[in-house]
């Protein structure tokens, strides 16, 4: 949907450019300013997600690996910014080739400060780069506490530069899925599923952390490896929730879009509902309301509403959130206890599974009145008389993304494994990545049991 918006903006910006540079004040030009201001503030908020992810991932893992995970979160944004500037943005939003990939605008070459279009591109890049970085940073959670730092740097750059932009082009950049009519307003699939599935492939290829699954008498026993700092993990979730308002409502890329308020409402309600049902459901299943599950539940609700935030009613948002809160607990259990895939922070369940779920839900809950007011066309989901077609397109998008990301990541991680290596060795893992990879401790002076 962003494509249309971009093209619209550019066209309209050109119209008013004369006025703008003649230093007269007119309404059209003010509208451009409002849109730019809105999009930039949203971009700043989405940038702040980096802090949220860093805190969540550090808090949910062990103290001995905290510096390492923080470094990863810092560097994926730093390198991702450079990679997306050099290559990613061009592949995603450049001149379309066969509906598959963009081919122009490397190194932000389109950002001419003398044209309204160029100025808009610069602001638009700012908004897009933080999305690219979000996709990349999700992966670090699923692969935490055992991945080599150098391996992380490499794959995270490739995700920002290539793997994410390809999906982005398909859905937002004028590619085949967008042309089919897929609706992924703010990126349940583009951003979150991409990150989630990349993490899934990575977690499988790495294998579990030492001591996570213990073979005893032919039986595999699952052991918990609790995170070391719940307060900062909770802070991270609050930061993410806060930033998500920029993520979703900002994805109009326009402050004059009349539905920005509606989007904020659906976003908030789904997150609230997700946290609520995760808490209740974990209470029922594990006898106690589990804090880390409830935190995951809020994120699940946020991820799930991201695709449809502009196209569903507040009531539908509540329903989507309620379901996603249960779904995320089930998914975490499934990956951990059935598939024995070790995902320390639940990134695959939150971003991969709930991202796919949310994208499909658009096919059920989309309502024309909401979608129209947001300017994304007259679409209706199955429950509102739109029939199966939208659901089919959504499912195609979910499937195609899964296939692309899996294959690309399989290749990427295999290559890394064969060259620099993917996983630290046993002793390094035992003693902690902070000391082994970075020569520092995260909490100097604190007495911490590192027996696990």
């Amino acid at each position, binding site marked *: 949907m962003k494509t249309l918006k971009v093209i619209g903006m550019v066209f309209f910006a050109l119209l008013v450019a004369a006025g703008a540079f003649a230093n007269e004040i007119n309404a059209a030009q003010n509208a451009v300013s409002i849109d730019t201001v809105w999009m930039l503030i949203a971009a700043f908020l989405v940038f702040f997600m980096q802090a949220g992810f860093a805190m969540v991932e550090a808090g949910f893992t062990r103290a001995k690996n905290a510096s390492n995970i923080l470094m990863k979160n810092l560097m994926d944004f730093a390198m991702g910014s450079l990679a997306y500037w050099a290559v990613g943005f061009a592949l995603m939003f450049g001149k379309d080739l066969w509906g598959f990939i963009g081919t122009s605008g490397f190194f932000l070459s389109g950002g001419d400060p003398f044209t309204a279009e160029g100025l808009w591109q610069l602001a638009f890049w700012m908004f897009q780069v933080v999305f690219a970085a979000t996709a990349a940073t999700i992966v670090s959670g699923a692969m935490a506490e055992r991945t080599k730092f150098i391996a992380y740097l490499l794959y995270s750059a490739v995700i920002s530069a290539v793997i994410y932009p390809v999906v982005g082009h398909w859905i937002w950049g004028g590619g085949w899925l967008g042309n089919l009519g897929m609706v992924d307003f703010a990126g349940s699939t583009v951003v979150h599923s991409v990150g989630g599935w990349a993490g899934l492939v990575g977690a499988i290829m790495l294998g579990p952390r030492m001591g996570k699954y213990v073979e005893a008498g032919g039986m595999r026993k699952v052991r918990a490896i609790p*995170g070391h700092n719940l307060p900062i993990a909770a802070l991270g979730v609050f930061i993410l929730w806060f930033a998500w308002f920029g993520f979703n409502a900002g994805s109009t890329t326009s402050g004059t879009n009349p539905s920005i308020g509606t989007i904020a409402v659906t976003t908030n309600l789904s997150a609230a509902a997700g946290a609520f049902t995760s808490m209740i459901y974990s209470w029922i299943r*594990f006898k106690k309301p589990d804090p880390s599950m409830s935190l995951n539940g809020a994120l699940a609700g946020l991820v799930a509403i991201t695709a449809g935030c502009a196209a569903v009613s507040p009531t539908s948002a509540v329903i989507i959130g309620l379901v996603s809160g249960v779904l995320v607990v089930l998914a*975490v259990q499934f990956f951990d206890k059935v598939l024995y895939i070790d995902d320390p922070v639940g990134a695959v369940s939150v971003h991969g599974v709930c991202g796919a779920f949310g994208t499909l839900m658009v096919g059920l809950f989309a309502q024309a009145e909401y979608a129209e007011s947001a300017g994304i066309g007259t679409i209706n989901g199955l429950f509102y008389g739109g029939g199966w077609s939208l659901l089919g397109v959504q499912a195609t998008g979910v499937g195609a993304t899964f296939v692309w990301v899996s294959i690309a990541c399989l290749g990427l991680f295999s290559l890394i494994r064969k060259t620099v290596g993917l996983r630290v060795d046993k002793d390094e893992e035992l003693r902690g990545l902070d000391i082994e990879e970075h020569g520092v401790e995260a909490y100097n002076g604190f007495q911490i049991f590192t027996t696990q």
Partner: protein
Amino acid sequence: MKLIIAYIQPHRLNDVKQELYKEEVFKISVTNALGCGQQRGYHESYRGVDIEVNLLKKVRLEIAVNEDFVERTVEAIIRGARSGKIGDGKIFVIDLPECIRIRSGERGGVAIG
């Protein structure tokens, strides 16, 4: 002289300290410890996975006393720490042939208090 080592429940520390004060035992050293004893631990669960917590938080006291203080000290600890429930703890008493006060270099019984 004897060195008395006691493991008690953390939340009993204040009571034990008070009982020791009453017996005029003012000098003690305290460390954090994890203990595994008759008290079988309990189950936490993290993200739906059970954690068997069998190392419970305890507080470890170390008190050096002259012979004539041993029983009074032991009794005071028991008074302060006993709840009658499993997990109340243990007291170990070992011989202490020598004791030196760093500040003054004094040795033996006079250095202890």
